């Protein structure tokens, strides 16, 4: 039983971590709090669902579709909101407010187009066969989610550390001006990061949609709030923090539901968020100071 909960926590935590990674990357590099991240998450879920329903493609192809669609969303967000505000050196709060607007629009459009009801994946698309793992039975789906989330995170971490792109991203996160002087295409990187962040969010959306087998227009919102809690817990802009925070929240939620009850489940994230903000706003690993230009 405990092992079962443990696996639940790992898969939920993995998805939270993925989502939080997308959010924190955009904050760290583009220096924007993208409150439309939850909406992009929702778009990813719908994209995968529609790919399965309309195009009748297998799950992996549906995920690719989600990646494509959310990459576009990320591109559009940067092109039409982040970039113009950057050019104008708008105050920090401006992109925040604008992304609140974007999130509201996207959610409203989704509700108008798909309806407000909970949609489900057709039964045959979900791999529900159980596998026995160290004495615990786990569905292929859950196993797939865990493996995929962990693989993506590993890839991302490796990429950030070792690849040229990753180094360039870290340089820009540290100081865009210095990076530009070193010949880095800073605007291009901002756009790329926005795309990458959106893709991570969209993938998280697909995984959660599969995990809970439900897709509905407002699903992005509680997720966004949890993502914020995770990112603040781990420290804004810190990749390790997003990872650890995501797993921490996954575990906290699963075990509090198991032992306290599910009605206050969402409150766990907020309780944590509030506590962290009051006690140590920069989180576990956060950068307490603003970055220099």
């Amino acid at each position, binding site marked *: 039983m405990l092992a079962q909960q443990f696996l639940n926590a790992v898969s939920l935590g993995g998805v939270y971590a993925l989502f939080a990674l997308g959010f924190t990357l955009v904050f760290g590099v583009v220096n924007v709090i993208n409150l439309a991240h939850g909406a992009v998450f929702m778009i990813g879920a719908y994209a995968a669902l529609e790919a399965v329903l309309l195009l009748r493609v297998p799950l992996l192809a549906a995920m690719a579709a989600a990646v494509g669609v959310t990459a576009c969303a990320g591109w559009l967000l940067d092109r039409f909101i982040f970039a113009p*505000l950057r050019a104008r050196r708008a105050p920090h709060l401006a992109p925040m*407010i*604008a992304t609140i*607007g*974007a999130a509201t629009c996207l959610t409203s459009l989704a509700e108008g187009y798909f309806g407000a009801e909970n949609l489900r994946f057709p039964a045959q698309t979900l791999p529900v066969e159980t596998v026995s793992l160290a004495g615990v039975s786990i569905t292929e789906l859950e196993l797939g989610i865990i493996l995929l989330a962990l693989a993506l995170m590993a890839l991302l971490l490796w990429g950030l550390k070792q690849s040229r792109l990753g180094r360039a991203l870290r340089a820009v996160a540290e100081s865009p001006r210095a990076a530009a002087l070193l010949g880095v295409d800073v605007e291009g990187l901002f756009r790329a990061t926005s795309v990458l962040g959106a893709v991570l969010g969209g993938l998280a959306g697909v995984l959660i949609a599969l995990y809970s087998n439900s897709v509905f227009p407002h699903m992005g919102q509680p997720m966004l709030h949890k993502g914020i809690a995770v990112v*603040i817990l781990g420290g804004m802009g810190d990749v390790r923090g997003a990872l650890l925070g995501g797993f921490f929240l996954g575990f906290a939620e699963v075990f509090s539901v198991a032992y306290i009850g599910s009605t*206050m489940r969402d*409150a766990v994230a907020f309780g944590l968020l*509030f506590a962290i903000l009051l006690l140590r706003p920069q989180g576990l690993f956060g950068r307490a100071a603003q970055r220099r230009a």
Partner: protein
Amino acid sequence: MEWLETFWATYSTLALSVGTNILLALSIYLTLACGLLTVANAAFMGIGAYTAALLTLNAGAPFGAAVLAGALLAAAAALAIGRPTLRLSGVYLAMATLAFGEVVRILILNAEDLTGGALGLNGIPQLAGAVHVLVAVAAALAILLRLAHSRFGRAIAAIRQDEIAAELLGLDVGAYKLFCFVAGAALAGLAGALNAHFTFFIGPSEFGFERAVEILAMGVLGGVASPWGAALGAALITLLPEMLRGLGHYRPLINGLILILIILYSPNGLWDLVRAAARRARAARAGTPC
């Protein structure tokens, strides 16, 4: 006069909503004016609404007392979370207030015995009339206009532009921010209490994120230059979707678009555009090249 009666029969809720929305817009104007981005006003509205409604429904309290209690409880909540939360800077403050809003909504959902949970409260006595709302709006506008043109208004504007410089000139920035936050909460609570008593029914979903976004949109649309801007923003956002037939369902979409467009094209809100146009008109009439 019969025309007026028919008009009122059809549009009373809308007209009264404009009134309470103006109060809400003023509540966020206060916080935006000193540079705070808080999205908790929907939660404060909810606190005011539920408090007042429960008092009139269950305790048979007189209307005035119930409304006052609603506003005061909202203010008390703001005071409780204000001191620690307002220490946080812009972005963290926004997120903390976002979290607070969600916590309130979840608490309302879960306290079923008291609040009716997801089903909300039904059958609230229709005690709020045009006079109440009008008086509330007029009083709020009058007070805020007076404040805006006083030393207080000047201090607030300074804090908004450069908080640290203001503190280093002797202004107790923390106290000013707390005042705006708590007063804003009281206004929002007042709006909620009044609103509950002409809409007959309230539920937790009315005081969640969508409402918070709408309030934000009204404030951003109006801008921080003047309380009149907030009133204008509230009127537009309440009336526009209704006037353009059938768009009432798309309120969230419209609010979202407004937020994006204003931030991109007129960050100081519409009131700024109005004043700029008025200036140009004056200059043109005076014959000066602009």
